[in-house]
C-alpha cells in the first residue's frame, strides 16, 4: 500500500510539474488549475505552521499550563486580535495600534543593526592599507576596493552637479557598479538554470527512471 502511494505521489508531482511547464506553450486550463492549487496549498501551509509553530508554543500552551504566571501574554493576544480586525473596514483603525507597535520596534532595531553592519562596519572594512600585502594582485585589488567604494558612494551623491572634475569619480563609480551588475547578471543566470536542472532531474530520474 505504502509503495503504491509513493508511486502515485511521484505521478502526482510529475502531473503538476508538466502542468506548470505547459504555460511555456501558452496559458491553458492545466496551468490555471495547478496555479490555484499551489495558492491554496501554500495558504494552508502557512496557517498550519503559524498555529503549530507560533501560536501554540509561544502563546496558547503557556496560557493553558500556567495562566496566572503568564497573564502578561494576554496583552499581545489582545493586540493580535486587534490586528485581525483589519479585515473589517469599519474596525480597521483598531489594527493601527498593534501595527504601530510592530513597526516602531522593527524600525528601531533595523536602524541600529543596519547602521552598524552596513554602514559603520563597511566603512571600517574599507580602511585598509593596500601596501601591507605582498602579492601585486592583492595590492591592486585592495586599491580597487577603496577607490570603487568611494566612487560608488559618490555616484549616489546628489548634492553636487556632476560636471568638470566631479564627473571623474562619478564615472569611475558607475563603471564599478556595471562590473558588479555584470557579476550579478552571471550569477542570476546561473541560479535560474539551476532551478530548471532540479525539475528536469526529477522528471528524468524519479518519474521516468531514465537514470539510475
Amino acid at each position: 500500500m505504502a509503495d503504491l502511494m509513493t508511486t502515485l505521489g511521484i505521478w502526482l508531482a510529475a502531473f503538476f510539474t508538466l502542468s506548470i511547464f505547459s504555460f511555456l506553450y501558452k496559458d491553458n486550463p492545466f496551468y490555471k488549475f495547478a496555479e490555484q492549487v499551489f495558492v491554496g496549498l501554500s495558504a494552508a501551509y502557512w496557517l498550519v505552521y503559524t498555529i503549530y509553530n507560533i501560536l501554540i508554543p509561544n502563546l496558547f500552551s503557556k496560557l493553558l499550563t500556567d495562566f496566572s504566571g503568564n497573564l502578561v501574554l494576554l496583552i499581545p493576544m489582545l493586540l493580535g486580535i486587534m490586528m485581525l480586525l483589519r479585515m473589517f473596514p469599519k474596525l480597521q483603525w483598531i489594527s493601527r495600534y498593534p501595527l504601530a507597535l510592530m513597526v516602531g520596534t522593527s524600525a528601531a532595531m533595523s536602524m541600529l543593526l543596519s547602521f552598524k553592519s552596513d554602514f559603520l562596519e563597511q566603512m571600517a572594512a574599507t580602511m585598509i592599507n593596500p601596501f601591507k600585502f605582498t602579492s601585486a594582485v592583492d595590492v591592486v585589488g585592495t586599491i580597487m576596493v577603496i577607490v570603487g567604494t568611494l566612487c560608488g558612494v559618490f555616484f549616489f551623491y546628489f548634492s553636487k552637479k556632476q560636471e568638470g572634475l566631479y564627473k571623474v569619480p562619478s564615472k569611475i563609480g558607475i563603471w564599478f557598479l556595471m562590473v558588479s551588475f555584470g557579476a550579478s547578471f552571471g550569477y542570476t543566470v546561473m541560479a535560474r538554470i539551476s532551478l530548471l536542472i532540479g525539475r528536469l532531474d526529477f522528471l528524468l530520474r524519479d518519474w521516468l527512471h531514465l537514470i539510475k
Partner: protein
Amino acid sequence: MKSSLLGLLLLLLAFGLTGKTTEQQVFSVQDNPWDDGTSILIEWDLEAGADSLNLQRADSLGAFTLIFNEFAREGRFIDSSLSTGQEYSYRLIAYNQVRGDSLIYIGSARTKAQWFDMNKLSLLILLLLVCGAILYYIFSARRGKELFIRRIGGLDSMDEAIGRATEKGKPILFVPGISDLGDIQTIAALNILSHLAYKSAEYGTELLVPCRFSMVLSAARETVKEAYLKAGKPDAYREESVFYVTDDQFGFVAGVDGIMLREQPAANFFLGAFWAESLILTETGFGTGAIQTAGTGQPHQIPFFVVSCDYTLIGEELYAASAYISRDPQQLGSLKGHDFGKLLVILLVLFGVIMEIIGAGWFKKFFEGGS
C-alpha cells in the same frame, strides 16, 4: 557641513591619543566590560610548550567544575549567563606534556552592570550626526528653504522618449512597478508619473498606465488627472487610460505584454519595484522596438534593465528623481541628509586609509567597536 566634519575628526584624534594600553598578563579574570553584568572575561597567554588546558569555575560550595577546554596558547573565554553583582572564582589548569607537569592559575572577579556600552560610542556619534542632518534638512525644507539636488540624467532622456512617441503618433506606456502603495518605490514611481503625465498632456500624447493593485490604481488616476489639470488640459484626461489588470504577478505581466503587442507604444517606462518578471516585460518591449526607460531599487533586477533598456535609473536615482520632481520636503530633506552621510563616509574612509598606511590602527579600531 565641512567644518563640522573637521571638528569630528579632531575629536576622534583626541580619543586616539588617550587610548589606553594594557600590559600582558598570563592569566586575567575580570568583569566583561560594557555589558549587562552577566558575564566575566577570562584571558590567558600560556608559556610555550603548554598543549592543553582546563578552565574551571567554582560553584557556590567552592567546588570547581569544567567550563571550557579548547586549547589555544593565547586565548579568551567569556563566561556568560551569570548573576549580576556576584563574585566568581576561576581556575585554569595548563598541562605541559613534554615536561609532564601542569600549572594552575587562579583568579576571581565580580560581575557589574554598566550604564553605557563604550564599544558603541562610534555608532552613537555617527548615528546622531546622520539623524541630526536628516532632521535638519527636513525641517529646513519644510520652512521653505531651497535645497539643491542635481537633475538626474534619466529625466532628460525621458522627455526625449516622449518627444519620439509624439512624432510617431503612438502612445507611451508607464508601469508603476508591481508593488502596492506601501512601497516607497511605488510612491517614487507615481511622482515621476506626474511629470510624465504633464509632458504627455502638453504634447497631446496618449498615456497608458496598467496597475496591479486597486490602491495603486486610484492613486495613479489621481496623479494623472492632477497633471493634466496642471498642464491646462483637463478635458484630454481619460480615466480608462489608467486601468487595473490583475493582482496575479505573472498574470499582470502577461496582460502588459499583450498591451505592448497590441498598442505598440513608442516609449515604455518601467519604474518602481520589479522582481523576476522584469526581463519578460523588457524583452517584449524590446521586440516592439520601443524606447525603454527603467528604474528600480531592486538590486537584482538592475542588470537586466541595463542590458535591455535604453536608460536605467539605478537604485537611489529613482528616489532622487522623484524628490527632484515633487520637491516634497520630506523626500528632499531625507535625501540631503543621506548625502551628508555619504560625504562623511568618503572623508572618514580616506582619512582611515591614510591612518592605516602610517600605522595608526586605533582609528579603524574605533569604528569597528570592541567585542
